[in-house]
């Protein structure tokens, strides 16, 4: 039970930056930005290459975020300068990134040196605090303290990212970015440069997706080019689950609900994975859970205001 909780939260915190990135593109810019499928892997690849060359986790994470942000900027420029629709621009950059990531695999053969990664740091901390990495017991339930240390490290990174993002969205530029997605005419009327704001938002979203990839590769000590496929779906699931409880709340809570959504999503998957009977159909149950999360606000609204009239 405790182990399931720890694994769920640890994987959830790895996904928090991705969920925040998808929150920016989906909730602020009103587009499911497919670029994240590519930038998640790109972030992982860049991190793996730098960790192999002993650059250290902080340098690797920073470089990964920058790489992701550059890819997001390209998506933004395709949309704002060349007039390509946002969704299409995302698909184009995602497709191009597949080849870029493939070339990284071919040329640099990314592989993680465990002692250089955050997981390695977690192992060292565990040795220091617990004396060994063996399983421990809490209330009669077994858990691995190394996983708990990893959880704390990823939680620190994810919480820092969320706080910085929250801070950013309360600056002048952040407020303008929030407005650019929902009411660009009003923002333009205030003299702001909407194309720049959209590009900044996409760069930020993809920098965050790359950060998730960077954390992923540090925990799992490797990444495959196909590991990014479905990142947008995962991110959307986290945002949807969070949205189920925060739809009418103020912006800060909505943003934090994406964090909660990521944690809940992975907790549910962890619970499914640890169940021997359900573990082989995780995707089916995940889809059902996401569907329920999407239906919940609709049901709640119906409960309050009677049945909705759907326009056809």
């Amino acid at each position, binding site marked *: 039970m405790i*182990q*399931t909780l720890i*694994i769920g939260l640890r*994987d959830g915190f*790895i996904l928090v930056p991705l969920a925040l990135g998808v929150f920016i593109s989906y909730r602020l810019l009103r587009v499911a930005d497919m670029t994240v499928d590519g930038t998640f892997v790109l972030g992982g690849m860049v991190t793996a290459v730098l960790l192999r060359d002993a650059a250290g986790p902080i340098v690797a994470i920073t470089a990964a975020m920058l790489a992701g942000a550059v890819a997001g900027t390209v998506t933004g420029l395709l949309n704002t300068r060349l007039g390509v629709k946002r969704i299409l621009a995302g698909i184009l950059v995602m497709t191009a990134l*597949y*080849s870029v990531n*493939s070339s990284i*695999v*071919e040329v640099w053969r990314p*592989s993680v040196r*465990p002692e250089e990664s955050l997981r390695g740091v977690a*192992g060292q901390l565990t040795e220091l605090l617990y004396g060994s*990495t063996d*399983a421990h017991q809490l209330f009669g339930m*077994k*858990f*691995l303290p190394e*996983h708990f240390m990893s959880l704390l490290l990823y939680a620190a990174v994810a919480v820092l990212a969320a706080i910085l993002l929250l801070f950013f969205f309360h600056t002048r530029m952040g407020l303008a970015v929030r407005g650019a997605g929902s009411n660009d005419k009003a923002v333009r009327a205030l003299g702001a440069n909407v194309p720049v704001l959209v590009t900044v938002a996409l760069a930020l979203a993809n920098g965050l997706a790359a950060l998730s990839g960077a954390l*992923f590769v540090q*925990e*799992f*000590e*490797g*990444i*495959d*080019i*196909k*590991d990014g496929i*479905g990142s947008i779906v995962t991110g959307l699931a986290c945002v949807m689950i969070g949205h189920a409880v925060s739809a009418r709340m103020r912006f800060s809570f909505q943003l934090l609900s994406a964090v909660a959504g990521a944690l809940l999503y992975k907790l549910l*998957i*962890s619970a499914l*994975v*640890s169940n*021997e009977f359900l*573990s*082989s*159909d*995780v*995707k089916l149950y995940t889809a059902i859970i996401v569907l329920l999360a999407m239906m919940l606000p609709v049901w709640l609204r119906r409960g309050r205001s009677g049945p909705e009239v759907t326009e056809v």
Partner: protein
Amino acid sequence: MYTFAHFLRRYRAVLAVVPVAVLLFFACNKADEEQEVKKRWKLTMVKYDEMQQTEHAEEGFLSGLREAGLREGVDFEFVTRNAQGEAMTVNSMLDAAAVDGTDMLVTLQTPTLEPSFKRRYKAPVVFMVVANPFVISSVGASDSAHHPKVTGVYTNTPIETMLRYILQCRPSIRRIGTLVAKEEMNAIFYREQLLDAARRLNLEVEVVNVQFRTSVPLDAARLCQSGIDAIVQIEDNLTSATFPSIARAAKDYGIPLFSFVDRQADQGSIMVYAPDYRRAGRQTAVQAARIIRGEKPEDIPFGRIDKFDFIINLDAAREAGFPIPPELVAKADRVIGKVEGA
């Protein structure tokens, strides 16, 4: 007169001792057997994804354990988990297994092998349905010098055998082609194997890289137009999943097609030289049984699949105008279509 009663009286001591000895012998044997497996082992099988190969390997593994004298529910319990193609789920499954009492991990496919021992848990790892474990550098350098916690059985299909069979049918073949999913480690391994084997047999190889399912038909057509005499399709996940479109292109351009996955013989491949994954599962079970009986994985060398199925599709051969000599047909484990003159 020497009667049966005399015989009984004379040898009564011997006759009394024999059944007692027999009983003692079986009792000791039984005690030995019980001592052999000291506890009930929990075996957790982690699959990256469900495929025909993994199904066969699992079946073979379980029957192999039974053949090794191990009883499910008594000597071992068996749990199988399928990550459905997600790396993060593979790792979550391995993490869950670290504290759920799993005594041995049985990993299928390359993406599950690396994290299973890199995550530094105590349970020994036995792998199968892996083309070449050495593509993961930390797994070891040779069959006997490997990671102390890991052992298993790998495929390593002898591509040269297939090329020799092809040349036996048509010695004039000089140029062969293949599609390669270059992101897949196994594909790169088999590409190198094909290139080496072709070099030894003085064959040229045309390689076309593929990335997406949707582009495979076009890539296959491009390969067929590149002046090749035959397609020898190496095994990887992408081309295995899209094999019918490769077969269609080969048929359209009249290029004979050969491959290494058994079901592809029914999909248009003229000759298939495919690993028998049920057999591989049995081989792996022998290794697992040795660990259960007290041996360490480091003392058990990696094994290679020792049986390959040679399948010939005579209908496809006739359609492509590629005659197969009777002596080769006689070698086949399975023949699809009617043998001429039979």
